[in-house]
């Protein structure tokens, strides 16, 4: 597959629920080896977009290419090469962390012994190895996110699709996850990340895109943004939230 193709290429992507377009004519290209931040207010269409990229929801119209392969036509090959952390829990509550990681590894086609060995290493790396018999149902929110991230790494994917991966994770855990992702990008992987924390995006990402009401309202490299007078927060508020920050309630 020619490496010139972007890691993610979407063209005129549209997803309609009833009479409402959650994503409306989105066109985007994420270069390989890029740390890409995908921002937007609540309900802007970020999660719907990432779910379409993961193959969890078919688009109403438009095309998606992941690592040069069309989605959903080549869905299986794509899924084997991506690591995902969706917004909702995709963990099996009645398994232990180790059992779940081994399961995920085997789902990605790893040999059982290899999956078990990597699961142990990932548990240690993500500091989830203290109570190996603990069921996932007993995990805190942050632990669940860390486990989901570990499962996304187990098969060494080329592309990461991460929906709010640091939500609920403590500062130390989040730092470790960020460093790990930066390492992956240095090694040639691509990260597509949504987050509400603009500082995180500003610090990690090479490029950012902002989506509002299903439409792309800005796409820029962080370098270009830094050259201007605006911070990412300024640009975000100017583009989609200028009226919201001025509102106030008399009784409050």
């Amino acid at each position: 597959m020619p490496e010139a193709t972007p890691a993610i290429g979407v063209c005129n992507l549209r997803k309609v629920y009833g009479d409402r377009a959650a994503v409306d004519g989105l066109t985007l290209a994420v270069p390989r080896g890029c740390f890409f931040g995908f921002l937007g207010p609540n309900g802007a269409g970020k999660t719907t977009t990432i779910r379409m990229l993961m193959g969890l929801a078919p688009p109403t119209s438009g095309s998606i290419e992941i690592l040069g392969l069309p989605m959903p036509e080549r869905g299986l090959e794509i899924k084997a090469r991506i690591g995902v952390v969706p917004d909702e829990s995709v963990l099996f509550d009645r398994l232990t962390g180790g059992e779940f990681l081994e399961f995920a590894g085997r789902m990605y086609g790893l040999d059982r012994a290899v999956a078990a060995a990597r699961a142990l290493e990932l548990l240690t790396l993500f500091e989830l190895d203290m109570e190996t018999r603990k069921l996932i149902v007993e995990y805190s929110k942050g632990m669940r996110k860390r486990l989901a991230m570990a499962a996304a790494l187990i098969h060494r994917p080329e592309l990461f699709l991460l929906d709010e991966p640091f939500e609920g994770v403590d500062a130390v855990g989040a730092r470790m996850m960020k460093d790990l992702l930066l390492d992956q990008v240095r090694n040639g992987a691509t990260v597509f990340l949504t987050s509400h924390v603009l500082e995180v995006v500003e610090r990690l990402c090479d490029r950012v895109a902002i989506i509002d009401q299903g439409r792309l309202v800005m796409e820029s490299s962080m370098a270009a943004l830094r050259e201007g007078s605006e911070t990412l927060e300024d640009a975000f508020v100017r583009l989609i939230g200028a009226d919201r920050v001025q509102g106030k309630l008399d009784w409050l």
Partner: protein
Amino acid sequence: MSSRVRAILGAQWRCTWHLLTRPGGRVLAGILWLFWYGLWASVGVAAGIYTALASRADLAVVLPAILMGTFLFWQLAPILTTDAGASLNVRKLQLYPIPDGELFVVELLLRLITALEMLLVLAGTLIGLVANPDVPGWLPAPALLLFVAFNLFLSAGLRSLLERLLAIRRVREIVVFAMVTCGALPQLLAATGRGGHLLRLLSFRQSVFVPWAAASRLALGSQTIPALPILCAATVAAYVFGRLQFRRSLRFDAAAARSTGSSGSAAWADRLYAWPAALFSDPLAALVEKELRTLARSPRFRVVFLMGFSFGAIIWWPLMHGGHSGPGGLSYPVVVSGYAMILLAEVAFWNQFGFDRSAAQLYFSTPAPFALALRAKNVAGMTFVGLEIALILLVCTVLRVPLSLASIAQAILVTLVFSLYFLSVGNVSSVYQPRPVNPEHSWGRSSAGRFQLYMLLLFPAIAAPVALAYLAAWFLESRAVFYGILALDALVGTACYHYATRAAVAAAEKRTEEFLAALSQDGGPFVVE
């Protein structure tokens, strides 16, 4: 079997094992399991003894009937009980690169587990046929294996098709209602003197063109030539249907289907929701209003509510000889109301916090006491019971059931007394056996298997006070005795309700953490709901 399929089965086995090894979980689950499958194993043994000893001529008549019975149970029982057992947790599994074919294998294994009862019956039948000297020894095994494969593929396809239909807002209730009504039609036809149509329909079972008759003839070695190709063709057709429907379900966008149609409430419904404010002050009024809205918007609730006054009226019509009274003056509206009450209890009484899932923590974090939340759920439940009775009386009028003021009063009073005992047990079970339920699912159980066992044992006790009033009226032929005992039942029921609710509130406050944790649990690769 591929390594992925083995991994899915292994993960599910571990999930089940961790669940069963909880303290107190193993013994009761084991008893329930042994009771149910022991019963079906006995049916299998009986079928085996019969088929081993019967003559070939008798088998030619009875074997198609046995196979038709297994076919109907396998395909229709999940639909009629609105409980299809475990299903694949596609939402979680579709993240991984698993080929459709491998998921289909797991789905077939699930359908096999769901029909374990029928496998026991067929295994008994097969052993009996092989042991019967009148039957060619080598034919029953391939015939019944093909028949099992046919049923498996068909049930996988039907389940997938229904799953998609039931995901579409407004359509799902109509589909479930149509299915359960169809299930009651044979009984209705037989009881209304139109049994001739039914018999003609059933005589179709003897035709070699239906799969169970083809399998039967193949097993007995008669008409092997048309039977074998017909059974093979039916199995291939079922495979194609099953595979196609399963594939469509995997590609199905449930969120998009759910988004069709408005989810808001109509103006008339808003008036219904607003009545608590006229009777109660906040926060109780707000809590009751929330419960009314939540229940009315839950497909699972709407289905059982609809079934109560419609399916209930149909199924009890012939049993009550066209709406006439039974022993002790037990009237048709009372019987239908009692049945509707049992259906409603599954979603509105036994597991009252199931639909709230993780939002249940709100009851412990707001200044309103937990007792108020429980009372609000009871008031909302009773509101729908009242509505159900009104609709049942309306149906009775349409069916021209003779209704007097006394029979109407009896229906209302008996249901109210009955509900006192239901609420008492329900409040305790809702706190001690909470279980998260997806209100979007039109079918599935809302209470835990362990609780279903408790109910099996408790139900006679719940029904006993009202049954006693009818028995006394029957023996003494006195309406005054009936109403006297009913009044006594109401007093005892009120006391039971008072103490049960107090105990439930105390338990919820003491075991808050366990209670909330139980409501936020999720499953494994299979969804068992």
